[in-house]
């Protein structure tokens, strides 16, 4: 399944949708759209080999958690297509990027725009922190640092079964503060798991602010290589560089692409809120209005009429 749009158009569309959503709701995960839109657009629009969605365009309401008494339970991974051997799989490891991921599903024709209107509404499956049952999600990743390990296990299993499909993990740089990330990389190297791919949004931000002020992580590319991964660093807003990075040879090792990004890319006024960018809630009507005008101009759209 391929989209009609260019990846640049998809990335712009993601930012416009997240912007509109944030204005209407007096805040949201704006900076994640700034940093990650190219990566998610590229994954869904170009790189991933995914089948047609198996779930309805307008997401179903919450259908209950997994239990022996809930035999019809299913995850939201059906928005990425069927689980057959030839297709790729994707985990969104930092589930806090869910709003951006949902916008990507809409821009690539996998979910109806109405899906975003259900975001964070009681009784909806389109949850604020992507859950297993949320559109495009296959596992719970709201606890940061577990995504790569899960991807490694799935990739090992798919390789053992001879499945050609790859396993991709979208990661965030804050996750390198978790020891489990490094346990996962060493296990991948030891077991030769080379059908596992990760692209990491290295925006140098975390919940408390700039990573350098919270916990310095140093040269993570060298650290990943020393733990046994193949690692390429690129400008995360340069699609041709991302495309080239994915071609890096990595036999016997997972490939980790570090996409270095700006948390205010295409929304320059967000810099006013640095270093608290994780979730931007407007502090006054005046601020909301100024952001509306500024970001709308940056994204080439009319300001959002959020009064209605």
């Amino acid at each position, binding site marked *: 399944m391929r989209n009609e749009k260019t990846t640049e158009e998809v990335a712009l569309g993601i930012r416009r949708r997240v912007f509109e959503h944030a204005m209407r709701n007096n805040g949201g995960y704006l900076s994640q759209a700034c940093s990650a839109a190219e990566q998610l657009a590229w994954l869904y629009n170009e790189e991933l080999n995914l089948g047609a969605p198996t779930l309805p365009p307008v997401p179903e309401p919450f259908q209950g*958690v*997994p*239990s*022996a008494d809930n035999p019809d339970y299913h*995850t939201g991974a059906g928005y990425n297509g069927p689980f057959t051997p030839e297709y790729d799989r994707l985990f969104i490891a930092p589930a806090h990027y869910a709003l951006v991921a949902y916008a990507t599903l809409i821009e690539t024709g996998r979910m109806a725009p109405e899906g975003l209107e259900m975001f964070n509404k009681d009784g909806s499956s389109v949850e604020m922190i992507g859950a*297993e049952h949320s559109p495009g999600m*296959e*596992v*719970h*990743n*709201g*606890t940061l*640092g*577990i995504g790569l*390990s*899960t*991807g*490694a*296990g*799935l*990739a*090992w*299993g*798919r390789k*053992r*079964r001879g499945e050609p499909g790859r396993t991709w993990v979208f990661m965030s740089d804050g996750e390198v503060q978790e*020891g*489990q990330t490094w*346990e*996962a990389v*060493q*296990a991948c190297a*030891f*077991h030769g798991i080379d059908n596992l791919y990760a692209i990491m949004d290295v925006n140098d931000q975390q919940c408390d602010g700039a990573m350098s002020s919270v916990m310095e992580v140093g040269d993570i590319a060298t650290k990943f290589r020393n733990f046994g991964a193949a690692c390429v660093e690129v400008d995360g807003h340069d699609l041709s560089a991302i495309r080239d990075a994915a071609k890096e040879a990595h036999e016997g090792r997972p490939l980790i692409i570090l996409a270095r990004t700006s948390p205010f890319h295409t929304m320059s006024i967000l810099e006013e809120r640095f270093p608290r960018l994780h979730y931007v809630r407007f502090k006054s009507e005046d601020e909301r209005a100024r952001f509306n005008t500024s970001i709308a101009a940056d994204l080439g759209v009319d300001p959002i009429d959020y009064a209605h």
Partner: protein
Amino acid sequence: MVEMVSRPYATAFEKFAAGNPDILCLSADLTSSCEIDGFRDRYPDQFVSMGMAEQNMLSFAGGLGLAGFRPFIHTFGVFMYRRPYDQLMASIAYPRRKVRLMGFLPGVTTPGGMTHQSIEDISVMRSIPNMTILETGDATEVESICEAADSIDGPVWCRVLRGSVPRLFDTPIKVGEMRVLSEGDDILVVTAGITTEEAMRARSALANAGLSIRHIHLHTIKPFDHRQLLDHIGSVKHGVVTLENHVTEGGIGSLVAETMADAGVGKRLVRLGLKDTYAHGGSRPYLMRYYGLDALALVRGIEGLMGQEFGISENDLDAARIDDVHSLVKAEAL
């Protein structure tokens, strides 16, 4: 004299798993300690060494489950839930992965002290939705634990005995049932794991004292047949005594208490086990005596419930098995 079986898990796991490509054997650097070294050497394709990295191991196992495998994780019980509790929840329990968590060294069966003794695991596992809990009390149950665990559509926590294990039963674990070991009508004794052998040691002395004991042994702790337990409680005159290799909060003592309270049963209950305390390092008989988990502790508990002493001393109890702390079947007692 009770039959002792050497390394029953080693034999049973290999018989169960060998040649089944969907079964994987995971280990976190405790391969011989969990008796799967022979399996590793003979079936390397089914063996996945995960190193001392339990957080990754549990999420990785969740990923294997997603790929349709049924991983059997082998390590000491404590290492499988204390550090990687978040991973156990998010990667295994919530999504109901068919991961079989084989927890060795339950309770005070290790001289390794606090860091090695899983004394609150049942309490933790009982409170995790989707989790099944099985506990082995003899060689026959160890021999049947793999089939029993693998019959479950979801994750399973197993307390597994190793080394030299007594054979007390001649039928395998039937998940969801309980074993009725005696059918008296004075007092109901409920045990699980290694405390069942202790209760059996006290049987003749209690009978000689004129007490009619109804004794049930639990290998399935969750899900639990509350109705059947209530029938047994209804069959005794005086009350219930539980004895567990675990803290008395959240384990089988609590399970029985909750069952009685929910049904409005007004009989006495005495819960024996670790009383809001950690244990320390030492031999199993020493620890069971020191912390009140042995046959004599059960007798004293029954005396307390009955409000009278029966004059039973250690000499009246069937001989305790004295295992060497270090032996050929478990080189490093840990």
